[in-house]
């Protein structure tokens, strides 16, 4: 177990079937990318959850700062006109 803290953390993304996007499913420790993929296979795809795996070292993910959430996201709150709901869809168009 002492070694494990030396192993970097990896984020795991699984594509559940062809045509869908890879989705974040969790994280794990591994010494390198090859081991991370093998570990992800053993931990996250034992019940047929996936057809493809991506791993990326957690340190390479840059996140937005929660403290700036207000400045980042609140301005979108009152801009409902950005949703494409302000025009009439012609009746002939069935599936929109």
């Amino acid at each position: 177990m002492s070694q494990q803290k030396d192993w970097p953390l990896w984020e795991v993304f699984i594509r559940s079937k062809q045509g869908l996007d890879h989705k974040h499913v969790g994280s794990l420790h591994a010494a390198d990318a090859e081991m991370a993929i093998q570990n992800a296979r053993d931990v996250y795809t034992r019940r047929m959850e996936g057809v493809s795996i991506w791993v990326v070292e957690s340190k390479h993910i840059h996140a937005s700062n929660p403290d700036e959430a207000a400045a980042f996201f609140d301005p979108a709150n009152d801009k409902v006109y950005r949703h494409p709901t302000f025009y009439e869809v012609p009746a002939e168009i069935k599936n929109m």
Partner: protein
Amino acid sequence: MDLHHTPTPAGQEYLPEKRALLLDYTLQLADTSLILGHRLSEWCGHGPILEQDLAMANIALDLIGETRSLYQYAAELEGQSRTEDDLAYLREAVHYKNPLLVEQPNGDFAHTILRQFLFDGYHFLLLQQLQNSPDQRLAAIAAKSFKEASYHLKWSSEWVIRLGDGTEESKARLLKAMDHLWMFSGELFLMTETEQQLAQAGIIPDSASLLPQWEAHVAKVFAEATLEVPQNVFMQKGGKIGRHSEHLGYILTELQYLQRAYPGLEW
């Protein structure tokens, strides 16, 4: 599958003598994957890290799955009233036909990895060939297990490289495991009389002929792992004909305890 025919009972196309050979061989394969699967399952909850704990449990389950298919086939070949459970839980150690390698104790992680690596290379090559067997059941079981064994070999090869070319400590442990385990690798390719006869009949691969490929893979992985292939080691044998180390008795005691103490128990 042709749905318009009721399937004939297994092995009816064989003469009794051939069927007995096939039964003997199927039990040998089944015992081998059962014992190794059981050994790996002993790691459950004790793995060095969570991910490897799961990896070993997954491999154990793959092997037990293969075991079940083989015992089911064996029970049909035998044509008596014995079931897969009887074959796994109610036979004596001297009737087990697994090679000595797979009954060796887990030791430390390096020990388990090396045992697995030596076995996986053989298992991979055997199943690769066995898929082409004219015996359809063995061919089907081999085809299913071959995919699993391919991953096992990838996994254990990676770990041999990591441990061999890792730290001083990991290399020392792997070398210590080599001292214990290499001597059991030869038996995998040593054919019993049963195997010789079935191989001559073209029903199973000639396992002796798999040795050069196995040696090539081992040499390649060891080179990457900065390990030397041991030379001139006296090879142990006997497991395949029922002469086991004392370890098998302990395994069976634990494995068979419940069915011995409470015959027929189900849950």
